[in-house]
């Protein structure tokens, strides 16, 4: 009941006209960035972060929520109309969304994508209201050793769940942890890896790393096809809505995909990409006419879209209650919270409940406004894609620089931004995933400090990391998350050999 009252308070703040204006502005800007090929919600929030630096916490969060949802809507717009997903999570929307647009059913595709996203996001937010408080209450009992094991698990799961070569996922994670050790060690005051540079003493701000990898790295990657002229895009639309029959086909897929998305999103490391792909495959298996999938089956678009939005809400739970962002975008959101002087984790729920509930209320409102704004405005916003990328991408670069500067007012950050942007691009070329690095840069410091604190408490023995049941559970989860994929691939190989 108490949560409910707090949520209502959150609504009264979030519903103030100024905040509604911000969420709309954030939503439109986020939609524009999300529509650009290769740029997704993480980039959108990273680039638009400086807009919120001087706002109050609630206004900042509601703007972020607007950008976040906007970028997701924008991403699926690009998937449907152009077959160019903004990020991994929007890939599944191309499978049936693009064929629908090619068949002249773009209106229905755009409408169902907005409707499914709205339902998925809203239902997931309701579940989140009930789940997050118990999780936070449970986590408050964690000591240094438990936190260390939790960080290890989150990192191992993220590295292990990334697509492609798993060793590369772990390499990415270690690079991130190494970056996090740069600066003055808070416990001993010793300068580590600062190369005598004054600017490195306070460490490298992880927001700079995030902007570098997500904005610069992605823009560098897009240089390849930047000069390929205008995108050929449909600009005239009929009424953007769906028929009763289409709705009937989609109801169950949406209802089934929402919990899948929510659950997968709440796992560390498994984000919207996996959620939407699982939902898509699930619907194809359940469908009476699986042959339509991939040829413009409307439920093949509705399912991943609902799962994607639900997972983005699910990912907020570990971020808010444990201080562990489960995806790139929640990592950026966590950065935004920390810029505001807030430390996500179980204490946030006790000490600043108004912020938590303000954020949750913002997510409800962001979801509604974006759905309302996006359906009628689809035709108008799409025109922005007619501005050639060779003008839009340099502007994104300009925004990244001003964003990095506004974090600590130091030109030194320009150099870091460039260096990590290049690193992000090289990693992409070498097929080394970037999300383990981002997570490691964010939690690296807390991870080392909790490790050392536990070590001091136990007088220098490792036993403390396996003493409490919670520690042992996290350790077991770590072993499973590393071991299970290994076991699975070994089994597949055995099967192949026996054939």
């Amino acid at each position, binding site marked *: 009941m108490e949560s409910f009252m707090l949520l209502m308070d959150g609504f009264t703040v979030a519903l103030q006209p100024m905040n509604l204006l911000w969420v709309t502005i954030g939503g439109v800007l986020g939609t524009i960035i999300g529509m650009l090929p290769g740029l997704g919600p993480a980039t959108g929030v990273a680039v638009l972060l*400086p*807009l919120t*630096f*001087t*706002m109050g916490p609630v206004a900042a969060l509601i703007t972020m929520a607007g950008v976040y949802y906007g970028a997701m809507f924008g991403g699926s717009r690009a998937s449907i109309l152009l077959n160019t997903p903004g990020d991994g999570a929007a890939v599944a929307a191309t499978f049936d969304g693009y064929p629908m647009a090619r068949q002249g059913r773009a209106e229905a595709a755009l409408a169902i994508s907005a409707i499914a996203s709205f339902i998925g996001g809203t239902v997931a937010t309701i579940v989140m209201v009930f789940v997050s408080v118990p999780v936070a209450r449970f986590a408050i009992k964690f000591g240094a050793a438990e936190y260390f094991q939790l960080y290890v698990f989150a990192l191992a799961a993220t590295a292990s769940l990334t697509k492609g*070569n798993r*060793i*590369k996922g*772990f*390499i990415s994670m*270690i*690079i991130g*942890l*190494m970056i996090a*050790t740069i600066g003055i*060690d808070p*416990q*001993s*005051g*010793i300068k*580590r*890896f600062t190369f005598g540079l004054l600017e490195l003493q306070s460490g490298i701000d992880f927001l700079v790393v995030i902007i570098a990898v997500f904005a610069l790295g992605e823009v*560098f990657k897009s*240089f*390849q096809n*930047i*000069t390929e002229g205008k995108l050929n895009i449909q600009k005239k639309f009929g009424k953007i809505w769906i028929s009763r029959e289409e709705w009937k086909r989609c109801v169950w897929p949406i209802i089934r995909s929402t919990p899948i998305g929510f659950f997968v999103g709440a796992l560390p490391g498994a984000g919207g990409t996996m959620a939407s792909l699982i939902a898509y495959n699930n619907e194809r298996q359940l469908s009476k006419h699986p042959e339509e999938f991939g040829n413009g089956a409307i439920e093949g678009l509705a399912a991943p879209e609902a799962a994607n939005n639900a997972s983005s809400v699910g990912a907020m739970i570990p971020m808010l209650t444990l201080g562990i962002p489960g995806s790139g975008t929640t990592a950026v959101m966590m950065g935004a919270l920390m810029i505001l002087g807030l430390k996500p984790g179980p204490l946030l729920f006790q000490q600043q409940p108004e912020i938590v509930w303000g954020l949750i209320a913002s997510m409800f409102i962001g979801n509604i406004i974006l759905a309302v704004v996006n359906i009628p405005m689809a035709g108008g916003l799409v025109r922005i894609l007619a501005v050639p990328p*060779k*003008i839009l*991408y*340099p*502007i994104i*670069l*300009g*925004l990244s*620089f*001003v964003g990095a*500067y*506004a974090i600590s*007012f130091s*030109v030194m950050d*320009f*150099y870091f*931004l*460039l260096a990590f*942007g*290049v690193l992000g*691009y090289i990693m992409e*070329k*070498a*097929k*080394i995933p970037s999300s383990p690095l981002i997570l490691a840069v964010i939690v690296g410091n807390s991870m*080392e400090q909790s*490790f*050392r604190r536990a*070590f*001091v408490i136990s007088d*220098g023995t490792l036993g403390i990391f396996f003493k409490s049941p919670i520690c042992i559970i996290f350790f077991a989860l770590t072993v499973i998350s590393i071991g299970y994929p290994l076991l699975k691939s070994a089994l597949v190989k055995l099967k192949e050999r026996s054939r």
Partner: protein
Amino acid sequence: MGDKKLEFSSSQKTSLISGYVSVGVGAVYLIMSLALPRAAVGMPQAPKVFPVGLSVIMLGLGAALVIQQYLAALQKAKSGASPAAGKQSAAKAKAKEKGKLEDHTKKIILTVANGVLYALLFSPIGYVLSTIVFLGLELLLFSGRKRWKMILTVSLVFSIFVYVLFSSVLGVYLPRMPILGL
């Protein structure tokens, strides 16, 4: 096997290089970690433990990646699959790809150089002017000199718009023109 040379596909080569680089990074980081001074308070070795652990894991991962590529190549050599099939047309496509890649790399290098110039100009001549230069050059890189009107308009409008937005609406200070004492 013996004298037969192992053949690596291009993605395996990239992985091999990644593995070697990881080993190198791990080694350098290990040396630097061991050279860290002792802590004056608490356990003297405490600041080293975590970094040393990281470098050891990094060395192991790099080595594992290298070994993985060799094992894969060995297995392929054993099963006798010849990567030479369809080599000619692949080589042609590769050359085309390479030209594109070189152009791509050139653009990235120029952008980074432009970014360094931006950093150097930013403090002395202020946000608006340095941003006009940066954005102007960046747009020039992709659109060419013929579009100078568009380039000028976009960089002027963007710089002034962002400056006004940040300093008056958002209250974030951006340097105006320190060289003239403004």
